[in-house]
């Protein structure tokens, strides 16, 4: 028996023989074809050197997946279509392994354009939202197209001609969509949809004084303790921010808009876990003025606020077009249409915007059909979209470190980061780009 490895396994996959060890196959985990196969329940006949196990599957894909289990790296030869490989991986229950090997941990400064997908809608995208496991959804008018991480399109979500305002993922199976109320129909509002089937699962109701009312749901935000926030416009001037429980779907709170301020029209909501507050930003041009505030729902308190009411409007480049709170530095970052970044201190009650001249990149050269700039924050990196490219700022001083540009498709109207991927949606052609960090190589 000397020199004979006891855990050697021989497979015949679709006519081709493979030899490996049960140790290698154990990397697939118990919840896989291989994990079950080697479980003692299944009483596998002891292997002798001649016996082999037949599997009626594609041998080329098996080779790639076996190599993945051996090394943790994924190399797909040109003769194997990715879709085929994924189907086989799904059969063996190792699809998660494939996904984990396909791209690396997100780093804004190492992103490569992986693919561009052209969708069926005729342009004018509303929003793109990255899912938790590498998929995404794209909202166009009254449709939301859902893609899994293989970029396989699922049945679209059809909102029956209600205009979609925002969308967000609760988990890889569920998407929340907010929509406009159509005049005279009493619909609109917010619903939970299945990402794989595109079906409506439940609706989120708003009631005022124990009466259920129809409403238009705007921007969405989610908190780690399973709450959904949405800006709401009711028909009888019931404006404000509603709060629902993700699990029960019940409305649990409502923050009413106060006179002279704007909440129900908000463009952007962001939950700040450290502050236990919600950032609400209503921006030009939805309203003539910008209103940014921090709401504390426990006390029904506006704990911090800023508005440009009364500011000189002669320099129109100073109009704030997007805002994002950065808890780490206790500040709010804003951007104007020339991609000037500005900062406000959350700790001072009477905050004012401190514009950063260094970030100005675009002075003078505006594209023909500009999109409003958008901001995103991910693990200490700040992303700002402008025209057809996305700038990456890093470090405590927010230095410009990278730019992502593809060169066609027109301006970027929205982008989103999640599942270790960045998705950028172009406004002219109905195209979105997927940016990934390449996986770290063994070599």
């Amino acid at each position: 028996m000397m020199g004979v490895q006891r855990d050697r396994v021989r497979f015949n996959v679709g006519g081709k023989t493979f030899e490996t060890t049960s140790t290698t196959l154990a990397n697939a985990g118990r919840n896989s074809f291989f994990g079950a196969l080697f479980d003692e329940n299944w009483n596998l006949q002891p292997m002798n050197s001649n016996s082999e196990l037949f599997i009626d599957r594609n041998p080329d894909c098996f080779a790639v997946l076996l190599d993945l289990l051996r090394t943790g790296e994924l190399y797909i030869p040109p003769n194997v279509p990715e879709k085929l490989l994924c189907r086989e991986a799904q059969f063996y229950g190792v699809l998660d392994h494939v996904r984990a090997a396909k791209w690396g941990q997100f780093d804004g400064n190492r992103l490569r354009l992986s693919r561009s997908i052209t969708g069926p809608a005729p342009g004018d995208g509303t929003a793109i939202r990255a899912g938790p496991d590498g998929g995404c959804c794209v909202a166009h008018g009254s449709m939301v197209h859902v893609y899994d991480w293989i970029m396989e399109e699922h049945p679209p979500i059809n909102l029956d001609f209600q205009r979609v305002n925002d969308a967000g993922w609760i988990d890889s199976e569920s998407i929340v969509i907010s929509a406009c109320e159509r005049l005279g129909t009493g619909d609109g509002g917010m619903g939970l949809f299945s990402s794989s089937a595109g079906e409506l699962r439940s609706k989120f109701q708003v009631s005022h004084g124990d009466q259920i009312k129809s409403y238009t749901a705007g921007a969405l935000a989610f908190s780690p303790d399973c709450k959904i926030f949405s800006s709401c416009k009711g028909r009888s001037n019931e404006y404000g921010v509603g709060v629902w429980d993700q699990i029960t779907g019940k409305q649990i709170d409502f923050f009413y808009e106060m006179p002279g301020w704007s909440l129900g029209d908000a463009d952007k909501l962001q939950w700040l876990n450290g502050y236990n507050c919600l950032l609400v930003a209503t921006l030009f041009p939805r309203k003539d003025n910008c209103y940014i505030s921090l709401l504390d729902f426990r006390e029904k308190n506006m704990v911090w606020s800023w508005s440009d009411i009364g500011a000189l409007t002669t320099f129109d480049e100073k109009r704030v077009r997007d805002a994002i709170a950065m808890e780490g530095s206790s500040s709010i970052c804003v951007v104007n249409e020339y991609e000037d970044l500005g900062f406000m201190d959350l700790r001072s009650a009477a905050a004012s915007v401190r514009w950063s001249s260094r970030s100005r990149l675009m002075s003078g050269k505006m594209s023909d059909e500009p999109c409003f700039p958008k901001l995103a924050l991910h693990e200490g990196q700040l992303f700002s979209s402008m025209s057809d490219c996305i700038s990456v700022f890093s470090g405590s001083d927010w230095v410009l470190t990278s730019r992502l540009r593809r060169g066609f498709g027109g301006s970027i109207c929205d982008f989103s980061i999640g599942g270790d991927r960045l998705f950028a949606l172009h406004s002219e052609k109905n195209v979105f780009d997927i940016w990934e960090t390449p996986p770290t190589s063994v070599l």
Partner: protein
Amino acid sequence: MSNPQRKRNFQIEAFKHKVVVDPKYADKTWKILEHAIHEIYNHNASGLSFEELYRNAYNMVLHKYGEKLYTGLVATMTAHLKDISKSIEDAQGGLFLEELNRKWNDHNKALQMIRDILMYMDRTFIQSTRKTPVHELGLILWRDNVIYSSKIRTRLLDTLLELVLRERTGEVINRGLMRNIIKMLMDLGSSVYQEEFEQPFLEVSAEFYKGESQKFIECCDCGEYLKKAERRLNEEMERVTHYLDAKSEAKITNVVEKEMIANHMLALVHMENSGLVNMLLDDKYEDLGRMYNLFRRVSNGLSTVRDVMTSHIREIGKQLVTDPERLKDPVEFVQRLLDEKDKYDKIISSAFNNDKTFQNALNSSFEYFINLNARSPEFISLFVDDKLRKGLKGVSEEDVEVILDKVMMLFRYLQEKDVFEKYYKQHLAKRLLSGKTVSDDAERSLIVKLKTECGYQFTSKLEGMFTDMKTSQDTMQGFYASHPELGEGPTLTVQVLTTGSWPTQPSVTCNLPAEMSALCEKFRSYYLGTHTGRRLSWQTNMGTADIKATFGKGQKHELNVSTYQMCVLMLFNNSDRLSYKEIEQATEIPASDLKRCLQSLACVKGKNVLRKEPMSKDIGEDDAFFVNDKFTSKFYKVKIGTVVAQKESEPEKQETRQRVEEDRKPQIEAAVVRIMKSRRVLDHNNIIMEVTKQLQSRFLANPTEIKKRIESLIERDFLERDNVDRKLYRYLA
């Protein structure tokens, strides 16, 4: 079909149909899988090919037969579970649980294998349709078909409860089997465990312990009962660790606590001849500890124990401090207090876990009854006096500290700390002036303790007394160094006492013998020569003298006497017989002192250096005195004490009391002024409250006295009443 346009469409659909086509294919595949499930349940799986079954299940899902596969699974598994349920129902008596356990294990194993085969369905079809995953489904079907089966449900519960009851009555049961069955109920979900076992278990247990505690309370004494309750509690906790859900521990111990402790709390504490008071009296640390640990578990348990202990200590303490027998010996009195405190300290530390609330209860009880007796401050000072005079000889430094600390503890309970100070000053002065103190270190140590307790002000005068003693020594050295001619003749030792620091009374200086008064004059001029601006007055009532005497038969003795006694004795150098009147005239000693001094010289057996006519115990104004030539003593040195009452006599007590009251007046006034200075305006009740609070560390101020002081301050224009609200006072700067 001949329409060419139709044909084009048909081609596209033809591909679709090809995949979903043969309905027989789906049935055949399902038959294979169904057969496999049968074989698995029949322990006949060795002939099955996992690869084949997995592929078949995969194909069914791929070809959109997921629903068929899923409903087939539910039906097949349900059928098997119904069979299983039957065989469990048929199990005879004791084999019931074993059969249930065996079938549960079989089902679990089968479920695992079925899940392996249907893994692809679990991952894809079930996820997207939001159906119950295979494993969970298996548990739910087991629950509905086996556990909820009408012939199993109550039998299972009854069997489990009976086993628990048998274990409670001392039988040995199969705990392993019990654990497996309970674990099964928990695996089916915490609500199943709660409904099918925990809830009824708790109810039955409550009934059981209600009955048992009733039985015990009728036949056991308190200590025994607590032992049994403790054992039951431990048994239940052990039961939880052996075969119940850990979350049940709090619930079942709650039941035992309620039934065995909470419901019988008062009966236990007040149980005749064995309740809490008896335990305290007999120092039953173990029983007390057990009571504490059990009662701690129920609400109001500890407060019940604490209240009974408190009222007992107060009762005992009240007897102690008001018993007239005890008041005869102050040292014994204080010693009894200390012993009582030690007793309860030990009980609290060894049985009551050093519980702070019990310590506080003990302290407040002591504070309560010590102050019931107005003489407590005096007695405590006398106790210290006794210890510092003689009691501490041969005692190590640490032990001295221990005794002093205990005294301080009693001191803390005193409300009238200033009274203590007054007595302490008197006693300390006597000790210092007579040189009777055993240990300077011990004296100083106690002063430091008092200082940390009550602040600098409290002890500054006491410390002044020590300084005076030291300075006097130096002064005497200086005096004799500058008067070398004084080597011969009597030696004078002067202690210069600062007025105010010492408890001096204005007293008439007596006539000193000529030799002495000359010496005193020399010292006076020396002292005033070195210190300007001072005045010396002699406190002849406080001094002592050593004089040599030769008696009838020529025997010599050295007599240790007071200054007054010396003055009297010196008169007998010149005459053999002196009448009381003559002595009074010659010495000018105040009558009461003189009488006491003559009594100690003439009437004390063994110390009677004088003889008096007529012989009687008391001194009369017409008595005559002679040198007692027959005086003998086996000692060369004879100490002639003064007859002093160790305790204060009634008039002296009144006097001290009056002095204390007098001293309080300026302190109350100072407090009022301090408070008003910062508050400017304050109403009467608040003033009283704040003054009382501020003076608490020294004495409990009497509200009427405070009111009087405020009135006096108003008279002297420190304060005024508000014109509108007469209850308000204003401070006048």
